[in-house]
């Protein structure tokens, strides 16, 4: 009787284990495929710019539910939801292309206000603190200002004019007597709104482009001390190097601080050296 009872149970167990193994394997395969698809789909193209206040891309894809409320509340139709196959960013996530429609940097930042999840960080309350990317003068051969002309359009449309982009005067080596007013972007002020890229007068691609900061900026070399920016304790406090006057050799221990008065150099500046032989074939020694 007990054998008759236990038999279906063991069959149940076997069947359960088989089903579980099958389900787990199927899900593992599907999960790996999905994860692989995600890792491909999450590669954000350099020229797709996220809205102001967007979290770092990895956090953004955990937070953005792709509802499009930021798109709806953008008064300039700057923002779009990415369409599968046409646009680079993950399907359905918001972005803009600066060359098409740049961010107009609304004071009240309606896109951030509209975001229900915080994928656009509510902590951003001053649009000048936005960090959508960084403008880079990417083609210094064709930029009209770099050629010595006065275009200045990127400089003049910049919402943070003279802070994010300034014109720096340089000598025009080509003409020899003109100036070049070079547009220079300052990373601490640039918000990445893209108005410069939109306004660049060159046909087709712009000479100045907004890029993600991960591409546009190098990592600072912290092992170099910039003596003009910081009081360098290594030099100023720990070691007091002797001040020396010019002279032969730098290890003048006889007279620290410079020459001893009785060791003034020879006025002939040859140090009293007389060659003990004449070089052959020089005109002066020929009889």
């Amino acid at each position, binding site marked *: 009787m007990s054998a008759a009872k236990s038999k279906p149970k063991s069959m149940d167990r076997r069947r359960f284990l088989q089903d579980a193994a099958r*389900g787990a394997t199927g899900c593992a395969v*599907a999960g790996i495929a999905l*994860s692989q698809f*995600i890792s491909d789909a999450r590669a954000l193209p350099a020229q797709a710019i996220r809205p102001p206040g967007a979290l770092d891309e*990895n956090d953004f894809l955990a937070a953005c539910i*792709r*509802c499009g409320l930021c798109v709806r509340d953008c008064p300039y139709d700057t923002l779009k939801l990415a369409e599968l196959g046409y646009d680079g960013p993950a399907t359905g996530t918001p972005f803009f292309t600066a060359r098409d429609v740049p961010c107009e940097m609304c004071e009240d930042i309606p896109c951030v206000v509209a975001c229900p*999840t915080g994928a656009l960080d509510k902590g951003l309350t001053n649009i000048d603190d936005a960090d959508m990317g960084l403008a880079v003068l990417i083609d210094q051969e064709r930029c009209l200002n770099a050629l010595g002309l006065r275009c200045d359009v990127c400089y003049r449309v910049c919402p943070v004019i003279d802070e994010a982009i300034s014109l720096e005067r340089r000598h025009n080596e080509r003409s020899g007597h003109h100036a070049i007013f070079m547009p220079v972007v300052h990373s601490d002020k640039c918000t990445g709104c893209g108005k410069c890229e939109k306004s660049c007068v060159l046909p087709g691609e712009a000479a100045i482009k907004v890029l993600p900061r991960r591409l546009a900026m190098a990592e600072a070399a912290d092992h170099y001390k910039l003596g003009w920016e910081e009081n360098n304790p290594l030099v100023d406090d720990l070691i007091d190097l002797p001040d020396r006057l010019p002279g032969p050799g730098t290890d003048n221990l006889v007279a620290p601080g410079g020459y001893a008065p009785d060791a003034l150099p020879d006025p002939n500046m040859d140090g009293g050296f007389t060659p003990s032989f004449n070089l052959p074939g020089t005109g002066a020694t020929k009889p």
Partner: protein
Amino acid sequence: MTDKTKLAVGQEAIETFGWLRAHRFLLLRRASQAFFLVLFLLGPWFGIWWVKGNLSGSLTFNILPLTDPFIALQGLMAGHWPELTALIGAIIVGAVYALIGGRVYCSWVCPINPVTDGAHWVHDKLGLQKGWQPKRTTRFWVMGMVLVASVATGTIAWEFVNPISMLHRGLIFGMGFAWTFVIAVFLFDVFVSRRGWCGHLCPVGAFYGLLGSKSVVRISAVERAACDDCMDCFAVCPEMQVITPALRGKEGDTPLILSPDCTNCGRCIDVCAMDVFKFTTRFDDTHAPAREQRKRTQPATGASKAA
């Protein structure tokens, strides 16, 4: 089975009650699906911004936030604690479906439902075999896989491929090649697996099913004693396994269809000429006598026993 099984599905109900009444829940359901779609399209098409967003997240009359709770859950798994707005939206949506039946979302709102219903219609017309039929529990495995993938990738994983949001968002914001996902689901349901997507695989449906497992609104086979075995309810039901315990229950078994798989679509009510089914609540304890012992129309022969 009776001779009536040979009739077209719902034919007898149409003859008894008229076409309109024999399709009332189907028509209501299509109207509801169209309503929720048009509601979202009023803005982009006519500039009437009553509802902004899409099924993943929306804002109605600039005051009512709604969020898909399954997407919110994936976001939490991915490690992002959302702003209060999204949380409140997810709780509202979750509470409503927990009350009226989680899979009401599937049959009354989801834009993929007309696609898979269409696929089933084509499948029927072509007279195809049912094909690959994974276990009903497969969708829970898929749901678990999606949650694990959300944790592993740190993203809202299903939204990279979800055909529901692909279609809905595509219609409202621009489709791109998202229609390929919709076509894929359609072809899958026609040629690979009858009622395969919604009935076996979709993790969103699995989530909503769990959400509504204790839901109040239920269908009851309250007049099951009148059932004449025409099988039409089984033929139209997208989750036919849910009917059996209620309809074929013994005396004392509840006539309520309590399975969380039931989508509350109401098609069984439509096609039943004997008026067996009706919408009610899970607290309805109307006495429903079981059917009489079934009579065999063709007594089993030795040959069929052997087979």
